[in-house]
């Protein structure tokens, strides 16, 4: 079931750039927020386990990490020109695009190390990876997301 869901996500994610091209601007905002929300849901669960706020459950963590790694790749396709209305995305995204993209790359790279960190069973490595992802989220939100 989970494999299927992930396979569906992979297919969807690879088809995203083409889809986003023909999308209404306001829908792009809707989808990127939806993606971030699901990313936040999965990452939040990992973070709670990393900080012992809830017990570490390897199966759940693996599923969260797999989803997070996949979902991390989604939002970048929905930041087209003109999608700066009714959103918390700051206009600086489109004037400092290279910096924004670099922060996105960094976050995606870190998130994609999550599944291996869970699989390793090494709690220290897992905690460190969760913290690295958290920093990658924060460094972009600090600069490019309005309060």
């Amino acid at each position, binding site marked *: 079931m989970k494999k299927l869901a992930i396979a569906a996500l992979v297919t969807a994610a690879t088809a995203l750039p083409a889809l986003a091209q023909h999308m209404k601007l306001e829908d792009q905002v809707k989808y990127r927020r939806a993606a971030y929300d699901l990313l936040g849901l999965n*990452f939040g669960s990992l973070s709670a386990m990393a900080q012992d*706020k809830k017990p570490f459950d390897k199966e759940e963590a693996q599923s969260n990490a797999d989803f997070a790694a996949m979902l991390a790749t989604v939002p970048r396709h929905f930041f087209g020109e003109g999608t700066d209305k009714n959103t918390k995305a700051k206009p600086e995204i489109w004037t400092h695009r290279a910096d924004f993209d670099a922060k996105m790359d960094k976050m995606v790279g870190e998130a994609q190390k999550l599944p291996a960190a869970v699989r390793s069973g090494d709690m220290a490595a897992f905690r460190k990876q969760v*913290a690295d992802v958290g920093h990658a989220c*924060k460094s972009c*939100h600090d600069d490019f997301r309005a*309060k």
Partner: protein
Amino acid sequence: MNVTARIRVWDLPTRIFHWSLAGLVAFSFVTGKIGDPWMSWHLRSGYGILTLLAFRIAWGFAGGRTARFSHFLRGPRIALEYAREALSGRYHPFAGHNPLGGWMVVVMLAALLVQACTGLFADDEIATQGPLAVKVSNAFVSRMSAWHSFNEWLVVGLATVHVAAIALYRWKLRARLAGPMVHGWVPVPPGENWPQPAMGHTGLALALLAFAAAMAYVLVVVYPAT
């Protein structure tokens, strides 16, 4: 000069409160800026601050004489008059807060209270939520998170003015204010007749602190779980 020409202006609970608060506010600022994995400590430190603030408000009514609001809150005219004199270099020492400093105390406590209360509802949209965020609408959470971020600079601004003012008193008016907040003593200026102000009861302070901690515990642990 005889050896008794000094009085104790700050009682022990007030002094311990002061330095604990300063330490926790600095710690909260740093952990908030670093983010994960320090956010759980940021929240714990915030609960400590909330407890201290509740204690200080109670102490403002039940504490030693110089710690009471009724002692150091004076009319704006007196505060302005004092400011004018100090700016012209004439310094009139007070046993306790001067009229301007008294207002600064209340403003700082209020700003910290706003910071702590907004934090209870804040969500950084990464992995940290204040304990009461689950109890209110998302629009409210979003507003409180924004206030938490903006008010942070008010807190930093006030702390800077506070420290700068103490430095100015030291260098311009030759008045030492930091030391007495550590040991409590100030020398009585020549020609003044300062009675020793009543100090607060440490036992009462402990009871108030315990009560404040219990209230904070209910607010951040018991109530969110209901």
